[in-house]
């Protein structure tokens, strides 16, 4: 191939070095890692099994009730009932539950990892300076690139899909947790300090509660990104609605792809509205803290 940029370094050597290094990791730690992540897999399967164990005519009213509790409005539960019912009618109940399980597990891990990292970032300008470009890379790197190492480590299946989903969906939560804490009214922080709060007391009495609306926005974005990842994750054996879409593409089956796509849209709407409504309820106390 004619290439008008000169070969300054022999990239083949560099690449084979990287590949060799990673293959080394795979062969020496692959088995250990797989065992280590077994509990995660059990959790994921547990959630999925539970969602499928609960009869649809119980699950739909429960979600509707939760949505009513969050919004205090009758429109949201009706929309929830219609959308979930349609999902079932379209024959997508089982894959939808698999997708929900994957998304919930990924979001759960994203929260457990993302919020503490965001808190640490807000305390240290140096850590923030290091983390922001890392987060940029995590968000701009094409998602497929994550799949390669995870698949190599774990083989195709739910665990690499879950891990790739977490990596892809955690950055907004880290960012917004950091931002939320940094933007807390400095006078409140000063007041809390002046009354002798330890750093931990300051965090739990003032910073986290006041940053909650921003953190909730981060959780919302994380769930949405996790959901958008399911189609791609299905390529490495995560199953669920993404797999239906994938089959639609492979078999040029328009209706199959379209219905599965609709199912994803329904789930996205339900989760987005639920998290937002819950965030607003939390926010109520915080409005107009200072006049």
């Amino acid at each position, binding site marked *: 191939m004619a290439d008008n940029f000169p070969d300054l370094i022999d990239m083949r050597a560099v690449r084979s070095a990287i590949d060799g290094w990673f293959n080394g990791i795979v062969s020496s730690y692959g088995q250990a890692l797989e065992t280590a992540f077994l509990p995660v897999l059990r959790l994921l399967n547990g959630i999925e099994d539970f969602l499928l164990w609960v009869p649809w005519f119980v699950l739909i009213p429960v979600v509707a009730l939760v949505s009513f509790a969050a919004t205090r409005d009758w429109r949201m539960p009706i929309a929830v009932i219609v959308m979930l019912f349609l999902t079932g009618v379209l024959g997508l109940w089982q894959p939808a539950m698999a997708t929900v399980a994957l998304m919930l597990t990924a979001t759960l891990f994203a929260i457990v990892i993302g919020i503490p990292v965001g808190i640490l970032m807000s305390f240290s300008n140096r850590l923030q300076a290091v983390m922001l470009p890392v987060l940029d890379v995590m968000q701009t790197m094409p998602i497929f690139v994550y799949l390669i190492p995870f698949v190599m480590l774990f083989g195709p299946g739910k665990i690499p899909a879950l891990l790739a989903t977490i990596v892809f969906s955690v950055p907004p939560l880290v960012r917004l947790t950091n931002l939320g804490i940094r933007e807390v009214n400095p*006078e*409140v922080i000063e007041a*809390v300090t*002046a009354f*002798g709060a330890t750093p931990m007391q300051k965090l739990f*009495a003032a910073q986290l509660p006041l940053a909650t609306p921003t953190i909730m926005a981060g959780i919302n974005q994380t769930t949405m990104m996790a959901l958008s990842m399911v189609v791609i994750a299905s390529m490495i054996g995560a199953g669920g609605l993404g797999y239906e879409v994938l089959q639609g593409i492979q078999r040029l089956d328009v209706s199959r792809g379209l219905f599965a796509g609709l199912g994803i849209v329904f789930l996205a709407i339900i989760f987005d509205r639920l998290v937002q409504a819950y965030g607003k309820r939390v926010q109520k106390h915080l409005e*107009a803290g200072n006049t």
Partner: protein
Amino acid sequence: MADPKIRIERVSKLFGPDPQAALPLLDTDASKAEIMEQTGSIVGLRNVDLDIAGGSIFVVMGLSGSGKSTLIRHINRLIEPTAGRILVDDTDVVSLSKAALRELRLHRVSMVFQNFGLLPNKTVIDNIALGLRFAGATNSRARDLAMEQVERVGLKGFEKQYPRQLSGGMQQRVGLARALATNAEILLMDEAFSALDPLIRHDMQSQLLELQADLKKTIVFITHDLDEALRIGDQIAILNDGSLSQCGTGEEILLHPADGYVKRFVRNVDRARVITVSAAARKMPTITCAEISIDKIARLLSAEDAQAVFIVDDEGQPTGAISATSVAHHTDDSYWRDPKHVLPVTRVSYDTILANALSDVAESEAPVAVVDERGRMIGAISRQSALEAMAGTNGPSNSAKC
């Protein structure tokens, strides 16, 4: 001042990349702008010395950027000084360990903020209990103690509300109650009433004065409002570009402004409400009843250029006055010895606020006699001297440093 509660010793604060480098410049007469230009450091405070007496309200005043908020934050070390010492009850605040500093903030120094600094997600009662909770009190005990403060500041019935549901004045009462709840002896109030509208502010000042009469805290109060400073301050310190311009009682500052900056501050003040009658009084010649003679009266009047001669008894208490205009009509010594013919005298105590004596001055034919606590005559206020005092045209300028 025998034993100040808070002593600030040559405290300087510089903000910038290398504060220590700029420190020597503070002792020269380089201005704030020159120091900024030469070193890139912003002068926050410049060699400030202050002694703050226990149990009094000490007001620190200045325009924005004068360093007053920086100064108050040194007392509980929300800001670290670049140089100098801050002593609270002989504890050097600057050298305190983290744990000891926390103790100081929990139990000895509390603070009220301009924009209240309340936690919007906590109810009034939980906001007030904040300091107690930080100190490790159980929830129920902290609430009990906080409830006493709720009643003290007149918020009973509102304790379950959230700050946003309250008006500004009520929110600041929460701030005040929160500061009182820790039972700290020192209360720092940073422009505590500046965000409130004038009527509410006046009420809050009154409430603070009432509370202070009861509690006898050491209050350091920051304000940019001279009327507020004069109303509540036992002592007032005026800061200009981080340096102390003047420190003294309100009256001292009004009567003897130390420099042009202080003069600009005091120009528009209603002086009659601040200064006492002694500041407006002039020395008047006195004479005992037995000494009365036309010659002597004429001599006294011309020698001291006075409007009247006051007749005093053996104790020095004024009993009557002979005015310069009337003495010419009767040249008979015995006429003036008759108490019926001399002018009656109105007496006011030396510590009366001038505004409260003005009606006496207006109604009395003779100047109003100013007397000390034993009724002895110190001087007298004529209509002219009262007007001069209110206009601020009397007295030489000298500064009183704290």
